[in-house]
């Protein structure tokens, strides 16, 4: 069996580009990275099915010459799943944009407050730790807190 060098190289390029994109902070690029990675994986699944042959339709070609139909079915399933996830992620990114007017992923609030607490090492700072449940009260950065009523009101009007 000969190796499909071109396809393997393509997979390599797609993976490299995908990994690069997914490590970006911009959410749109992360989404693009997922798409590229998904396509790379789809090609990999096709390659796993072996050499390309005749269309797998009964009667059109001898059995031995047909392509493997199973991998094509698998890839179709995978494409549909990727499509669904992409749509959902796109909705989330749009939601982030409506809320934050920003495409970048913000830092985790709790992580930040734990880090700050450790940096100061003061007991009174423990008070700063907020509940995760209190969305509006805890989600904004300190320097943004004066903007909070406005944005919360915007959400309410929605």
């Amino acid at each position: 069996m000969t190796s499909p060098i071109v396809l393997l190289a393509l997979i390599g390029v797609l993976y490299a580009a995908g990994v690069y994109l997914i490590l970006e902070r911009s959410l749109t690029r992360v989404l693009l990275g997922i798409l590229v990675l998904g396509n790379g994986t789809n090609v990999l699944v096709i390659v796993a099915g072996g050499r390309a042959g005749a269309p797998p339709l009964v009667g059109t070609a001898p059995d031995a010459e047909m392509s493997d139909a199973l991998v094509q079915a698998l890839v179709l399933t995978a494409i549909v799943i990727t499509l669904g996830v992409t749509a959902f992620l796109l909705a989330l990114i749009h939601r982030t944009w409506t809320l934050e007017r920003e495409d970048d992923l913000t830092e985790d609030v709790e992580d930040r407050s734990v880090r700050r607490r450790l940096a100061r090492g003061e007991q009174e700072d423990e008070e700063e730790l907020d509940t995760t449940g209190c969305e509006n009260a805890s989600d904004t950065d300190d320097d943004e807190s004066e903007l909070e009523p406005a944005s919360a009101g915007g959400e309410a009007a929605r």
Partner: protein
Amino acid sequence: MNPGSSLLATIIPLPVLLPLLGAGATLVLSRRPTLQRALSVVVLTVVVVIAALLLVAAVQNGPIVVTVGSWPVPLGITLVVDPLSALMLLTSMTVTLAVLVYAIGQGVYDRDETTPITIFHPTYLVLAAGVANAFLSGDLFNLYVGFEVLLMASYVLLTLGGSRSRVRAGITYVVVNVVSSLVFLVGIALVYAAVGTLNLAQISLRMEQVPPGTALAIHLVLLTAFGIKAAVFPLSAWLPDSYPTAAAPVTAVFAGLLTKVGVYSIIRTETLIFPDSEVTQTILLVAAGLTMLVGALGAIAQADIKRILSFTLVSHIGYMIFGIALATPLGVAGAVFYVVHHITVQATLFCVVGLIEGVGGSTSVTRLGGLMKASPVLAVLWFIPAINLGGIPPLSGFVGKLGLVQAGVVDGSALAWVVVVVAVLTSLLTLYAVTKVWVLAFWRPADQIPVPDAPDETAESEDEYGDEDSDDEEAAGDGDAARPSGDGGLPGAPSPRTGVLTGVRPGTARTIARQEANIGAEVDWPVARLAPADGTPALSGRLLGAPGDRVSSRLPKVMAGATGALVALGLSLTVVAGPLYAVADQAADDLVARSPYISAVFAQTVDDRVAR
């Protein structure tokens, strides 16, 4: 094959089919909430009954197999019920049902017409279907589909309400899980390229002929994929970031189920497909020890109860991985028992946190106090699963840990001994973490909650409360207490700050938030009233009732009832620990022997090409 088991075989697909049909029906019934709720409960109850039947049958007669559409075995999709999958199915569906009742209780209690509960029920049932499919699947690609079904549902459930923090956590969660699914898909492609089949039983037979290097590469790819899903260190960082933001019932069901599906997949991979891989067993042992330790240390560093529990969740995944990594019947039996115990206890604890949030208005131990006095029932509900998690005898957590430690000692290798020590240490650290919550949130009198600097904002809000009685003033101020101090302490007149529950005497207290603060508030189901729209950080203590009502700190009946049922379930695991451990032993023997599973699958075959 006897006729009884063929009848049983026909009901195997139902745990997948019924929730999916139920999801469709509840979507249609979205305008009839009562009917919708009833239908969801009925569907899951039926699934629990079916799972119990399957467990009895699988334990008595060995694995039951059905090939969907009666296709010959390697072609069609096989669903296999062996003692392991039946046990997992029964446990997970029971917990799912209890959490559903809890969620319904929460929704009803909130009486909030605009909550997206219409979306909640169908999605929740889809999640159940995905979990059931993953447990029953006898085919690697079907397992992938099961994962995707449950993940898609979990994406929606996690971001329910679309508030800022949930969207933020949701993006991390979705991206991490999509990447892990892609890694899984790569693994599937590699398996198919190597052995030309995706049927688990057939893979396990053919994998023996694959060169060891190739097999190891495939093995590691699959382990990476499942390791992310199961949150095994160092692939666990996503979990404590994403779980705590979700609604209480959602977190409960996620914590109980989703990581365990990953653990289940690791058990299958390790026992069925790659039974004798010393390299990965070493890797898994090291990962198990690190998962326990890092998770437990993370739990101690946190102040938010939800995050503490998320870290203990990660930490205790390590115990299961430890049992699997030993790859002896004893070790696997310990892991299986531990999975059952942990699904129950972790879901219970997250449900209790939902109640704590309702009564105390916060989930941060720095801002809670006096809960013991305010609600003794709540204290009992927290205490039992908490010490169960920590592994106090005679509870099931102790039995599970004991079994695993015994298995490690019997194994006797130096690395196993190290992990045994780490396991015992982790048990202590877990106990420390949950005891910290107990001491601070329950035992500490409410008037001993630390006094922060008084911010300006509070003074305003107190003016508005001027004509209210003093209970309201104090508590409303406390809601605001923490945030502005992050600026380095705003100047302001210090005023007496006390606990959220200060002065709240059962049956007489009044709540804390203003009525107008809640009008037009962002509906962030189900913690709707915690965050007023105008930014006034009034913590309402949601379960205390609507502002101005005469309220009591009695817990809502349905939610407390569901939580109580979960606590009772956890306790019953202790009572039936003997028989349950026997089932786990049998499951482990079957898993390690492999032949019952494989021969059951191939007994189905009518196509003699498979026999080759």
